């Protein structure tokens, strides 16, 4: 068990000690704020720190309020989540001139109702159109494993803050891979739940068709704790499910008995560096998985996800592209402009194809409960790196870090990223993919890998 005041402490360990009266929430928050102050000049994960609010909330926890399963746990959120009294930056300069949030986003409220304590807002790629974690306005978040390298994005600050031990838990968003890519490059556990499982109310949108919110943490137990606290219907998000919450924490230790686990072949077995496929092989071996399945037309799915993203994103930002183009990050501006001009026929075809692909991929889950795939095609690229060589071919970094995540989020499947630490090398993650609303199975597999010592967060 880690010292609850140390950067190695998990959310579960902190909550247990706070609820057990062995440490105060005030001491936990003070320690977190001290760590953040020390790390930020290097890591640049935070854009906003709400120290006074956090101290007030900690005092309330210590006075007997909000003593839920996350009591006293410091957490931070990608700055596209509404934080009462602050403008919702969404990684932009433009939004800072907009209205201040009247109240916290739905998931912030749910985590705080469970006892967790918000300490700040986190850096991200502008308007979430990003896989790198770089940002022209606020600087890049830096990968704590090697600060000359990318965190991955767009939830780059979320990955950096957790990997650096500033907070044990962060929330991110994932439209095409923005939780899974930083989880992989920073070596953390990340959960992209089923599309519609968690409310997106009170968060700045990117692509309604694919936007998901979820946690990044140092353990599967923390993912499950946070996920369970955030479940539940929400009329403020029309996509949010009416299915009753399905707690995952009670099942986390059940192991992998009864789960049929397969490996994604074809598209997911090429186009990456050897370490991406070695990671999948290592995980498959630990799970006793040898069957390969093919997600049919995955390349077309990735293309369709790209088209829907470009067109929805371009359309969303059209008023700002007209009025304040000079205030965009140069790395997003012209992509949004090009997206706004793409043919409407492509969009409709991509949406029709989405249904077709969903039907065919769901057939795979008649024969397998879990499918394994690489999370990223490579380990963390260098900051500022524009091109990378994959499979001997030079391709742009920005468009391709999500090569293996896009065909999965395209149809909203739940995914847990399990991180593999590579001695002497950089970490890389594996996607543990389940059928819709079966987050529990993916979390069980990740917990099994963690228990076996195959998957782990980096040493704090």
């Amino acid at each position, binding site marked *: 068990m880690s010292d609850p005041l140390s950067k190695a402490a998990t959310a579960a360990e902190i909550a247990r000690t706070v609820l057990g009266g062995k440490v105060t929430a005030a001491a936990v928050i003070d320690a977190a704020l001290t760590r953040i102050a020390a790390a930020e000049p290097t890591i640049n994960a935070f854009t906003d720190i709400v120290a006074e609010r956090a101290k007030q909330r900690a005092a309330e926890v210590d006075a007997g309020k909000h003593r839920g399963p996350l009591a006293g746990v410091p957490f931070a959120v990608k700055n596209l989540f509404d934080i009462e009294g602050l403008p919702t930056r969404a990684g932009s300069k433009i939004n800072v001139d907009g209205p201040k949030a009247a109240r916290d986003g739905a998931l912030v409220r749910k985590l705080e109702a469970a006892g967790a304590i918000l300490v700040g807002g986190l850096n991200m790629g502008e308007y979430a159109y990003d896989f790198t974690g770089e940002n022209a306005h606020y600087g890049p978040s830096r990968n704590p494993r090697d600060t000359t390298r990318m965190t991955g994005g767009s939830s780059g600050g979320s990955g950096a803050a957790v990997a650096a031990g500033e907070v044990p838990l962060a929330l991110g968003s994932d439209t095409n891979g923005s939780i899974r890519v930083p989880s992989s490059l920073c070596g953390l556990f990340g959960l992209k739940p089923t599309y519609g499982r968690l409310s997106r109310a009170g968060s700045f949108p990117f692509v309604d068709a694919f936007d998901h919110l979820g946690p990044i943490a140092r353990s599967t137990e923390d993912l499950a704790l946070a996920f369970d606290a955030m479940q539940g219907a929400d009329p403020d998000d029309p996509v949010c499910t009416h299915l009753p919450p399905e707690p995952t924490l009670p099942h986390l230790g059940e192991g992998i008995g009864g789960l049929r686990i397969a490996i994604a072949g074809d598209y997911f077995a090429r186009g990456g560096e050897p370490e991406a496929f070695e990671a999948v092989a290592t995980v498959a071996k630990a799970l006793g998985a040898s069957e390969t399945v093919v997600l049919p037309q995955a390349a077309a799915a990735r*293309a369709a996800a790209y088209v829907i993203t470009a067109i929805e994103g371009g359309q969303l930002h059209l008023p700002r592209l007209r009025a304040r183009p000079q205030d965009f990050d140069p790395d997003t501006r012209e992509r949004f*402009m090009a997206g706004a001009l793409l043919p409407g026929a492509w969009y409709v075809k991509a949406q029709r194809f989405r249904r077709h692909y969903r039907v065919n991929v769901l057939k795979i889950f008649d024969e397998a409960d879990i499918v394994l795939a690489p999370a990223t095609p490579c380990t963390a690229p260098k900051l500022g790196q524009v091109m990378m060589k994959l499979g001997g071919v030079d391709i742009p970094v920005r468009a391709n870090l999500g090569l293996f995540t896009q065909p999965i989020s395209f149809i909203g499947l739940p995914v847990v990223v399990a991180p593999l630490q590579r001695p002497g090398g950089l970490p890389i993650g594996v996607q543990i993919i389940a059928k819709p609303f079966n987050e529990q199975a993916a979390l069980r597999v990740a917990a099994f890998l963690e228990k076996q010592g195959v998957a782990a967060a980096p040493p704090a």
Partner: protein
Amino acid sequence: MADDKPDVARLVDEAAKALGLPIAEEYCANVILNYERSLMIARPLLEVELDDELIPGPVFRP
């Protein structure tokens, strides 16, 4: 079939006018580059044939 390739610079220029999106000269080259990249990335989708009966749901439910 080189003749079938669209003139992307002109396409971007005309589409931007139709949409009422002024694109400053210094941004044009990159918008064109990204449009060309989109043409390439979209190709696997555009090659798929779908039945007429296949319609997207108004609200996507996985």
